[in-house]
């Protein structure tokens, strides 16, 4: 492989762009969530800072940065400091494999609009999404607080319930695209989106990613109202901010992956590919906010029951049916 300086510059440019866009979008997703939830509840939401409250994320950031960085007595110092990073970093890293636009040609180089086109991209996603839960587990364990510990135990129990069905729901996608490479999966959907062939797998994946990013029907690790704030009870300032922003980055990233796997990625008529991709991702984000405004929280055992006794068998049956269908079609 030849390392052309222009290639390297383009790669660094892509990384910087992804970082900037993802972090800004995550901050504004917090704002959007507060606004949409307010509208659902017949309120107005934040509207004081700047026009229509648009500078609210900035004000929140200043607040988080100037708060006291608090560590409880008896907390495991290094794990306590490590956990927020463990929650936020894998979430951003997953986005490295998501193709967010059609390949461009710049300075005579073909630029994939994707930070890294790995041939095992889908497996990397599964691995990193499992790593992300370490942030929850370690944060709760290191805090030396019963609420945080209960939250992290729930987080782990939740992980083993949804991770399996999430993985199994992606198997039909791989069978249809015949590749783990995300750009191949997107290209396989140029004609027809996989949601048409795989509505059941899409539903299972959607439910699983709601559990993955700890959104409301499955927000057991946080469960404000039962566990104070769950695993991040003892965190303050920017460390709490990292957990928080990590959760919203997770929404964007998982929305992006759901788009890539089932909604044809950046494919779409008339509009530029990147616009299609962002529209689909934002639609997922809106769906999550909408669901949060509607549904109550499930109980811990209900989630495990649902994951193990319904989602996983359904996903297995779906794989079998897909296999038969592919064999019969030849």
């Amino acid at each position, binding site marked *: 492989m030849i390392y052309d300086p222009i290639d390297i510059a383009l790669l660094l440019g892509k990384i910087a762009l992804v970082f900037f866009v993802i972090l800004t979008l995550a901050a504004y997703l917090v704002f959007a969530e507060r606004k*949409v939830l*307010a*509208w*659902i*509840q*017949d*309120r*107005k939401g934040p509207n004081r800072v700047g026009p229509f409250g648009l500078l609210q994320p900035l004000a929140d950031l200043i607040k988080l940065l100037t708060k006291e960085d608090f560590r409880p007595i008896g907390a495991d110092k290094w794990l306590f400091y490590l956990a927020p990073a463990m929650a936020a970093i894998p979430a951003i890293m997953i986005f490295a494999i998501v193709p967010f636009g059609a390949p461009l040609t710049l300075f005579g180089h073909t630029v994939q609009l994707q930070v890294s086109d790995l041939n095992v991209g889908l497996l990397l996603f599964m691995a990193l999404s499992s790593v992300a839960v370490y942030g929850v587990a370690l944060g709760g364990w290191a805090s030396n607080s019963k609420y945080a510990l209960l939250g992290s135990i729930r987080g782990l129990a939740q992980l083993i319930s949804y991770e399996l069905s999430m993985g199994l729901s992606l198997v039909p996608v791989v069978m249809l695209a015949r590749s783990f490479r995300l750009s191949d999966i997107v290209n396989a959907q140029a004609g027809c989106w996989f949601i048409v062939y795989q509505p059941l797998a899409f539903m299972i994946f959607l439910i699983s990613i709601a559990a993955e990013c700890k959104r409301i029907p499955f927000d057991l690790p946080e469960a404000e109202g039962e566990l104070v704030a769950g695993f991040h009870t003892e965190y303050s300032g920017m460390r709490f901010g990292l957990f928080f922003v990590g959760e919203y980055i997770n929404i964007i990233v998982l929305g992006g992956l759901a788009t890539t796997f089932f909604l044809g990625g950046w494919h779409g008529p008339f509009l530029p590919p990147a616009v299609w991709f962002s529209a689909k991702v934002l639609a997922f984000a809106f769906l999550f906010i*909408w*669901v949060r*405004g*509607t*549904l109550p929280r499930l109980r811990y055992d209900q989630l495990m029951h649902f994951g193990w006794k319904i989602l996983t068998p359904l996903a297995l049956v779906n794989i079998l049916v897909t296999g038969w269908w592919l064999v019969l079609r030849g």
Partner: protein
Amino acid sequence: MKILSDIAALVTGMWITWKHIFRRPVTIQYPEEKRTPYPRYRARIVLTRDPDGGERCVACQLCSGACPVDCITMQSAEDKDGRRYAEWFRINFSRCIFCGFCAEACPTLAIQMTPDFEICKRDIMDLVYEKEDLLIDGCGKSPDYNYYRHAGIGVTQPRGSGAEEKPPVDVRGLLP
């Protein structure tokens, strides 16, 4: 099929929240827009005067006794004509819970609640209102009432000239 009814319930809930997104918010943007409180809203307490301009309060301590948080204190005094008044009268609004018991207890309708709810202060000591802060030049919610026209025999008018009062009977004239 239970699962179908469950899904229908989910969809109904989602539809309801969807409709509420487009509904007008009920929020009142407080410092800019203010709602008009009802006339009987219980907020800042005032001491009113009777139609003749005299103080209604007779410093009977009933409001102070009725107050569940003990925020009213006063010192009674008496004029040369026998009319009682409060030498000083103090309400600590930082303790007041605006229950209105004082206004209900008052026999002369002197102490009354007003709808003015904006009494925030920078210094908590400013919330202790003295008599000159409380006393208003008006009759409040009972414009025609003058306690001394109905009671307080012989204080502001001669005996027998009150509103529901008959002239005193000459006891000797009743003798057989």
